[in-house]
């Protein structure tokens, strides 16, 4: 193979993939619990983060500014997210990349992901 090898092409992606600890989706509630939840985009499953392209969650989000896209990659602004689940429902990734988590951290969910999206919140209650 000439030019870019597969390894090269995905070096960035692979690096990220290896760092992240695989985690099972939380037991997603069926209906929105109205404000008690927060959307999280898992880069591991998100097409935009995985080197493909997608912008559906930010486009369909009814809350202006709640999903910010930079260099093609979406990120939830926890201060603006209302937990309405639209982004989860429209996410076309092969494994849904949007997870709804309780706004208040609870056991098992205080990993890196929550830290990243809620820098202003304490790790524990």
């Amino acid at each position: 193979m000439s030019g870019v090898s597969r390894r090269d092409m995905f070096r960035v992606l692979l690096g990220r993939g290896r760092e992240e600890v695989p985690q099972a989706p939380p037991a997603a509630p069926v209906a929105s619990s109205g404000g008690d939840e927060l959307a999280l985009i898992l880069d591991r499953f998100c097409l935009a983060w995985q080197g493909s392209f997608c912008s559906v969650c930010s486009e369909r989000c009814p809350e202006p500014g709640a999903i910010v896209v930079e260099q093609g990659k979406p990120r939830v602004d926890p201060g603006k997210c209302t937990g309405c689940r639209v982004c989860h429902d429209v996410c076309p990734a092969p494994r849904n990349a949007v997870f709804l988590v309780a706004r208040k951290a609870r056991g098992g969910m205080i990993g890196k992901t929550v830290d990243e999206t809620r820098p202003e919140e304490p790790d524990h209650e």
Partner: protein
Amino acid sequence: MSTLERRTFLKTSAMAAATAAVSQRAGGAAAAPASDGIHWDKAPCRFCGTGCHVKVGVRDGKVVAIAGHPDAEVNKGLLCVKGYHVGGILYGEDRLKHPMLRRNGVLERISWDEAIDIAARKIMEAPERFAIYGSGQWTIPEGYAAQKLIKGGLSNNHIEPNARLCMASAVTGFISTYGVDEPAGCYDDLDACDVLILWGNNMSEMHPVLFSRFYDRKSRGEKITLIDLGTRRTRTTEFADHYMEFRPQSDLAIANCIAQQLIERDAWDKEFVEKHCAFRADADLTKPDLMGVAIDFENYKQRVAEYTPEKVSEISGLPVEQLRLLGDLFADPKVKITSTWCMGMNQHTRATAINRLVHGIHLLSGKFGSPGNAPTSLTGQPSACGTAREVGTLCHALPGGRLVAKPEHREQCEKHWNLPAGRINATPGHHTVLMWEKFCTPTAEGGDIRTILVQVTNPGQSLPNLHKLFRAKKGLDDKFLIVSDVYPTATTELADLVLPAALWVEKNGVFGNSERRTQQWFKQVEPPGEAREDVWMTIAIARRLYDLGHPGMKDKDGNFIFRFTDDAGNEVPVWEYDRFHEINVDRALYDDYRPLTFLKHKHLAPYDVLKEHTGLRWPVVEQSDGSFRETRFRFSEFDDPFVKKGNGIEFYHSTTNDGRAQIWFCPYEAHPEEPDEEFPFWLCTGRVLEHWHTGTMTMRVPQLRGAVPNNYVEIHPDDAREAGIGNGDKVVLATRRGELELSAWINGRGRPPRGSLFVPFFDQIRQINLLTLDAHCPISKEPDYKKCAARIRKA
């Protein structure tokens, strides 16, 4: 879709694409099938012309998983959102499963025997008024069979692919420049170039995997420059180092401005041009043709001289500095430049001209023939190159780059097909727009097309100016429309006979992608109900015509023109469907076709070699050790075995028979329907990432339909404010051909400048092609879907 429904779907549909894809990428290991009973095979993706290869996982007769093929050079394991869901296209609830005939306005189920008999009898009534309309989604064997049936059997040249609406202008650009179709470079140029110029090409939306391949170099710290030459801001613009927003149609002036600067600065590549190029222009601008006339350098220089950056800045709206930047890049001999384009340049009323000009600036600057230096057109369909262009399923073409107008080419095909001399008609048939116009015109008024067989495409939604070119068929009782498809479409709505077809891995196939790569796959699951292979339908109709006594269905020895034999040499009646799978008909047709590719040095790989690879780029030439080697860079001595040693670069199919390519001069000319007081906006149409073409397949995949459920009109916020239009408001969009109610999207995925609108064409309910223009390039006959005048108001 509610959360619950969606979760249930994800659980039950079992399109567990991610499992394989993500684990592969995360772990790096090429997914060996786990002990989950999934059998894995390979296939090219069904959608665009990028030609990604996928791994297809089948369990219990159903495609249950998809993964990017890790060994595929094109995509290296990556897929786009459509690719990850490609298996889902097979399982929409409304698959067509039985042949149907329209009786008293209603489609009623009939048997296959009846269906084939009716089709054959309709053709038999007036064989010269029959036409076949296919696409760049025909597999190579399907296109080849259709081509042989109509041109070799019926002595009729009315066969067209929808590629006429798509790639025809790229073809005329390549042929009038190099004397032979298809790009000299390949995707490897994206790995080597310093600068990528996208000419009206929204690559991250339309060819996302290719764009990732290019852009990932930046993530690795390479210095690469992306120039987005466009008419609206797109997803791609966000990644561009330079966004150059030009007035629609002025790309002609911009290309000429680059040539003007190269000459004025004395920075053109004199050695390259003197050795390898000649100059050319249209003899008569009011009647441009494919070949034009030779001009000398002085004449060329004189004609481009007026395209100074200052003047072109006025025409195009680009600042002089941006035009000078383009001049600087092309003038720098050290900078490797790749240009890509797709529909922005091809769907253009001066499409052949802009194609020629972009080739011209690459030749004039010597940015050609080494890795990273290439003008490359991208295709929108998986086999626009392989089938439409190489098999030549166009009204003027014969297989392997031959033309119906050339006696020696007809003779070669007649000999190859063992037909009596003179069987192939010397007069080209109707091109697409004309074919449908004639079909929609009453017979008494000169509508000389009576029956059309449509395979693998949806003209009822994709033709321009649909009222005139498609819907006008309604009420013309002697016109008969036969449609083979997999789902009900805008085309089946007017069909008289509907034939249910097998789709993608429900049949064997061979596709050819944008970079000359031929890819093969085998059937992996059964089609639903009574759906059958298109290639079988073609052969069965031919056989019925044979039985009805059509003389053209026999070769000169009296044998049926589709005669296939088993290993023992016994004829297999493949037209009987229960005998069709006794041999690999795809392989037999491919083997028959392959020698026809040698004339223009487009040597395809043998079927057995192809099946071992995720595609090979032609010419694929046998080596002294019996192995086959693909060619990445055509016309370049270091890679192309057909270039004579010592020549460096050789255009061995030169139109002037001297090894030279042509640098064309073509002027900037205004568009035939520029915005005016009555219709003050430019209207542009196109695709979105999640949907492919008319959405008949992708709209059946819940994740893709859910992501973008309907089309919309993109409008600039200032234009919206002036018209009192808010985001999401219903608006009425109108052109001289019709009007349509849509929702407005302000600051959406694409951001048109003031005075410009954009609408995607995938939506079957809100068909934008009711409004588009059928004006076309005089040489390629390809219509301009990218520009017409429109107005908009709040509904």
